[in-house]
């Protein structure tokens, strides 16, 4: 038996599974200046995003919580990408990421390895998993 679509291969790539099993920037962030929680009531997954901002710049980003491969990999790659970005640049990344997974827009080059999550658009039930950490990021940046 073989799957009728390549969803498994398209989405659950080495990169995503590797971030899932060895998430980057995982754990509390001492001296965080902004933080927010995301919760997906349909699966119970939670993610906390902690940022250290100096002026308008994100100098450190961490996340906590537990979730599926998609939400964990998304959070892990997100914390890597936003580090060193300005508040505006980070918000622009959030917009680009959501355009990719929600609307199915081709991945913007600035998303880097996060383009590995483009396939989530094909799985409507999983879009919320991918955007969980990004929503928390937007809330934290709004503080």
């Amino acid at each position: 038996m073989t799957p009728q679509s390549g969803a498994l291969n398209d989405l659950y790539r080495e990169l995503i599974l590797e971030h899932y099993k060895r998430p980057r920037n995982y754990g509390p962030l001492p001296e965080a200046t902004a933080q927010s929680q995301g919760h997906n009531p349909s699966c119970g997954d939670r993610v906390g995003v902690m940022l250290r901002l100096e002026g308008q710049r994100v100098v450190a980003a961490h996340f906590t919580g537990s979730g599926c491969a998609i939400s964990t990999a998304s959070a892990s790659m997100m914390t890597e990408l936003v580090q060193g970005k300005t508040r505006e640049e980070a918000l622009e990344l959030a917009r680009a990421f959501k355009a990719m997974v929600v609307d199915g827009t081709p991945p913007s080059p600035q998303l880097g390895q996060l383009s590995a999550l483009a396939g989530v658009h094909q799985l409507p039930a999983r879009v919320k998993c991918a955007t969980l950490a990004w929503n928390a990021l937007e809330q934290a940046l709004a503080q």
Partner: protein
Amino acid sequence: MTLSPDLDLKLKPDFPLLQGQPELVYLDSTATSQKPRAVLAAIEDFYLHHNANVHRGAYPLSVQATAAFEAARGKLARFIGAQEREVVFVRNATEALNLVAYSWGLGNLKPGDEILLTEMEHHANLVPWHLVAGRTGATIKAVPVTPQGRLDLDALQTLLTPKVRLLSLVHMSNVLGTVNPVAQIAKLAREQGAIVVVDGAQSVPHLPVDVRDLGADFLAFSGHKMCGPTGAGVLWGRYELLEQLPPFLGGGEMIDEVFVERSTYAPPPQRFEAGTPAIAEAVGLGAAADYLAAVGMEKVWAHDQALVAYALARLEEEVPEAWLFGPRGADRGGIVPFTLGTLHAHDVASALEPYGLAVRAGHHCAQPLHRALGIPATLRASFYLYSTRDDVDRFVEALKDVRDFFKDWL
């Protein structure tokens, strides 16, 4: 393994959706069941030939509609061994439980009283009690679940003090498939003077349920999980208790006399059926009860048990990476809750989807149970009378593929 004839009741041809989609392996009957042609035909026949409002017009069409609606009440009453006047049509089990919580709870509970629930309840049998406890000052306690997935009956005896005014519990768990010894528990509770409410959302569709044997005061169930349409369900209550209850919703149909500033109410069951009911849906649910009765609920139950035993045996043998939850024994219905290695349930469900498998992943509206199990989410494959051995085989083979795909990450 010797194959039991119970593994396929050969009823799939009765279900047009399943016939039309042979690639689909529908294993989410715990969430909602598919509908047999007989039910769809009954609904269509009602709209084509008998549609009018009920309990109103003297013209023949309204008389026919009323007769069809009341005949459905009779079918449901016979299906659960009840009197017709004890069957209240509601939308679903959730509404039935809310009806009891508000109508009985608001009038009878006070600070210091206890509502006893269990850790394996669906949110539908938790949240209404939270709302009513908040308004009455009553306290909520819950019977814990053992590691085997059964209610801890010793703890139940300890918790069942005279302070407990009401015990509300699930007959068959929508996650674990556990069938609780409701008759035994109801006897203990009623000896303590507590009212006993049973959530029969899973039990009434899947096993023979007779309210005379149950020994409870109220039984709630949904039509759509027992081959009926959405929008029609039942609250059964002992008549002398229903008679004492104030209305839940007010409006037409449920009154005796209405003045500008006050009204008096009809006797049960009409007292609890405000507004135009889901007439065609009730008629469809009556046809569903007839369909199930014709197959035989003993047979439906034996089939569920045979399939779950077959599925568990294959999974244990061939997918040792799967963690299987729920009790083993005669008190287990046709539900397979599981996780795969350390993978999150939603990842496994997405991976199974391309195989045509409709399984559910998440907390299944039972967060306290998952908290007790120590996991955020499970996958759930569930069976019904149209499920077959082939469905189980395709499920196990797909899960093996997914296991192989993720083998380095389990």
